């Protein structure tokens, strides 16, 4: 029960008790006053009537007439005259008729009209005593009216009192509500500073304390953010040309060389600068650097037509341009264009183009290749280019051996979608420090008509080519919520969703209606992994997803993190539970970069997960860097 409710309950009870007591006392006092009034009336009548009776000189008929006249004209229930020997001389008695008063009132309120008496004399001698009792009908009616009035006025008082009490409590405890919201925000790693400092001392101290804490944590975050941004510049940017460097390319290539990559292949172009010594001699280092900058601009201009292209300086004289979805013909045309443009600049700089020139090796890669393979084959193409007359050479990758043809895949996947033949297989993310499973990682598998089970790695590439990957995600996520796998009950499981699927226009609405109906029935805790590429945009769209997930108690994770963002504010805004990056990324991070990243993630309570950990040696190195949650083959070797 909240403090507000407790205080409100207590004060309301207190108020009602006070009002009830005052009401009871008021009624009691009214009751007493009415009874006293009854006596006073009777006493006045007794005194005046006894004096009148004295003038009758003991004539009983006269005295009876006087008594009758008084009795009939007033409200009396009893008048009697007794002589000095206490013998009854005359009496009048009436039965009370109680009007307009309910039975319960008569039962509760007992009015006893008092008797008043006065001596009656004839001359010097007393001749008897007169007894008078007023009628209590009037008193009952009067008291009942008083009670009704009291109840109405006290009900109004109680209602107004309770409303005022409620308003007062709300006003007094308003700062507490803000303190509570601030505390709750802190728990969610949101850093809210309260500008309105409460007047109440206790609340004031708490708010100032929390503001100070928030400010410190914010400073830590900002420091980490700045440091990481600085390190990113040093780690990934070539300082002369401002192009990306080799490290960046190596970290970025996995995104292009994976089964569910959005591009199935393209051209990787390696450009080598020959005659740098001559150029340096002729132009000087500074001018050569300028020349490199101009070259970089040419590379960037030519690559800019290709979405997701990368231009990187590999070393002093070599550059790479990665052009996804670029054909061999286009690649060759582009290479010639670059070659000619650079040659023109060399001429402008007065360099001998026979001694100073560039060679371009082109390699037509596909998504199935590994990074090392891609780089060495491109390097080989460059070596060929250096010896060719045009200084341009194109090599192609071997044709990929597919399990089945494109059309056969399309048919199989469509059939599986139709019959809901997608299911989950899961592996684990292990916390090697705590020696326990951090969470389950769900992977999609597909069963064909002939009961062959295809893994994600097998069917996702052809599904991508056939434009069916989003349909698969939609199918599997619907199954997950509508027919949840009870084997996962009580666990925490993550599901990775692709950039393409999340970026689709209808996905948000689909997830919204699905969560609305089924999220509360999901028997396990779900973490949806979102690619860093989407997260770091910190767009309205991703914020909508965050709000949607938060509403239905679904956590958010980040995958494919290589720390290439311009700003890490998005981590604070979106507060993922973990960041997953390749183990190679974490291992290549400098001490400064890692500690800056740690500063951010520790501040926001974000875990770091290293993926693709294949052996114990890598695991050991990660452990040294205090990266303790891992995914990959090595998890099978860890004893829990």
């Amino acid at each position: 029960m909240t403090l507000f409710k407790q205080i409100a309950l207590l004060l309301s009870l207190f108020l009602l008790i006070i009002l009830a007591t005052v009401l009871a006392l008021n009624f009691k006092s009214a009751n007493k006053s009415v009874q006293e009034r009854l006596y006073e009336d009777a006493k006045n009548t007794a005194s005046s009537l006894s004096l009148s009776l004295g003038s009758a000189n003991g004539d009983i008929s006269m005295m009876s007439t006087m008594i009758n006249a008084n009795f009939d004209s007033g409200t009396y229930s009893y008048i009697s005259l007794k002589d000095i020997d206490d013998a009854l001389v005359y009496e009048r008695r009436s039965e009370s008729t109680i009007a307009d008063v309910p039975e319960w009132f008569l039962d509760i309120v007992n009015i006893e009209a008092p008797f008043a008496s006065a001596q009656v004399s004839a001359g010097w001698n007393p001749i008897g005593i007169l007894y008078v009792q007023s009628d209590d009908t009037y008193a009952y009616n009067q008291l009942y009216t008083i009670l009704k009035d009291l109840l109405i006025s006290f009900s109004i008082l109680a209602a107004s009192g309770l409303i005022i009490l409620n308003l007062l409590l709300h006003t007094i405890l308003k700062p507490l509500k803000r303190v509570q919201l601030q505390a709750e925000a802190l728990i969610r790693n949101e850093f809210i500073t309260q500008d309105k400092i409460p007047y109440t001392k206790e609340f004031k101290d708490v708010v100032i304390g929390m503001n100070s804490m928030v400010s410190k944590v914010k400073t830590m975050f900002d420091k980490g953010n700045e440091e990481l941004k600085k390190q990113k510049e040093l780690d990934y940017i070539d300082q002369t040309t401002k192009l990306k460097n080799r490290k960046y390319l190596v970290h970025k290539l996995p995104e292009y060389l994976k089964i569910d990559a959005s591009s199935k292949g393209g051209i990787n172009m390696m450009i080598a600068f020959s005659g740098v010594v001559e150029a340096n001699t002729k132009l000087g280092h500074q001018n050569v650097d300028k020349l490199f900058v101009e070259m970089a601009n040419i590379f960037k201009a030519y690559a800019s037509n290709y979405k997701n292209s990368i231009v990187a300086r590999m070393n002093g004289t070599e550059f790479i341009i990665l052009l996804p979805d670029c054909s061999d013909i286009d690649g060759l045309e582009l290479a010639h264009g670059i070659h000619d443009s650079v040659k023109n600049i060399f001429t402008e700089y007065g360099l001998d183009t026979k001694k100073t020139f560039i060679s371009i090796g082109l390699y037509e890669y596909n998504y199935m290749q590994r990074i090392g393979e891609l780089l060495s084959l491109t390097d080989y193409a460059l070596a060929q280019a250096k010896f060719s007359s045009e200084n341009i050479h194109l090599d192609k990758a071997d044709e990929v051996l597919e399990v089945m043809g494109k059309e056969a895949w399309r048919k199989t996947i469509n059939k599986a979608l139709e019959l809901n033949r997608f299911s989950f297989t899961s592996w684990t993310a292990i916390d090697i420090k705590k020696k326990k499973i951090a969470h389950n990682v769900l992977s999609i598998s597909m069963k064909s008509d002939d009961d062959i089970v295809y893994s994600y790695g097998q069917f996702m590439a052809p599904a991508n080519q056939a434009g069916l990957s989003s349909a698969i995600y939609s199918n599997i996520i619907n199954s997950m919520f509508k027919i949840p796998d009870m084997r996962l009950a009580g666990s925490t499981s993550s599901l990775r969703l692709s950039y393409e699927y999340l970026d689709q226009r209808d996905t948000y609405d689909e997830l919204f209606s699905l969560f609305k109906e089924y999220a509360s029935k999901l028997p396990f805790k779900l973490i949806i992994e979102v690619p860093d590429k989407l997260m770091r945009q910190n767009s309205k769209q991703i914020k909508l997803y965050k709000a949607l997930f938060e509403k239905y108690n679904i956590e958010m994770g980040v995958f494919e993190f290589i720390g290439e963002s311009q700003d890490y504010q998005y981590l604070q805004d979106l507060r993922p539970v973990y960041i997953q990056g390749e183990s190679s990324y974490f291992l290549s991070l400098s001490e400064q970069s890692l500690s800056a990243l740690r500063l951010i993630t520790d501040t926001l309570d974000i875990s770091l997960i290293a993926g693709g950990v294949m052996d114990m040696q890598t695991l050991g190195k990660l452990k040294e860097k205090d990266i303790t949650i891992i995914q990959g083959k090595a998890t099978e070797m860890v004893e829990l």
Partner: protein
Amino acid sequence: MLKMILLIFLFVNYAHADKPYVDDKLLNKITKKYKLFAKKRFLSLQNILDINKNSQDTEKLEAVNDFFNEVRYSSDIKLYKKNDYWATPWEFLGKDKGDCEDYVISKYFALLYLGMDSKKLFFTYVRSTKFKAPHMVLTYFKTPRSEPLILDNNNRKIFPASKRKDLLPIYNFNGDSLYKASKTGTGKKLKQIKSHKKWDELKFNMKRKKI
């Protein structure tokens, strides 16, 4: 057993007989407030009461009437700054002044102390034809129907009512009788035990020993 009851009876009688009209504690207070002469007046009253303890009613009436008629008359407005005030016997004799009601009250309680039946005594509102003013006297009825004796502070001697042509009786009143009547008159047990406003006020003042 019989002896025991007799002894208790004798002891109670003895104890009652020795109980003074004004106890020592009250007398000390009166002395403190009204000085030594007041104390002497009370001691003198006690002496007269003690002498007449076993006398006939007429002797008791004479003694009490004579003693209190020595007190000087003074109006309530002068003494108590009130139009009408019924003083306790201690205030009356302490101040040694009072109006007609105060004489009646003091005589009434002194006679009760001497063992007179309260039913025989009445506060009687009268009109003095001589002074053409309202007045109060104490009336004594030997029997309920006999002619009353008038104890008056204006006419110091006790006369039967028929000899007091200067007084016109208006109303008889006996607080103790009315109180008893109120309690028992209808057979019902009453919460209210008031009988007469002035009488109730006087009884209250006497209860709290107002001096």
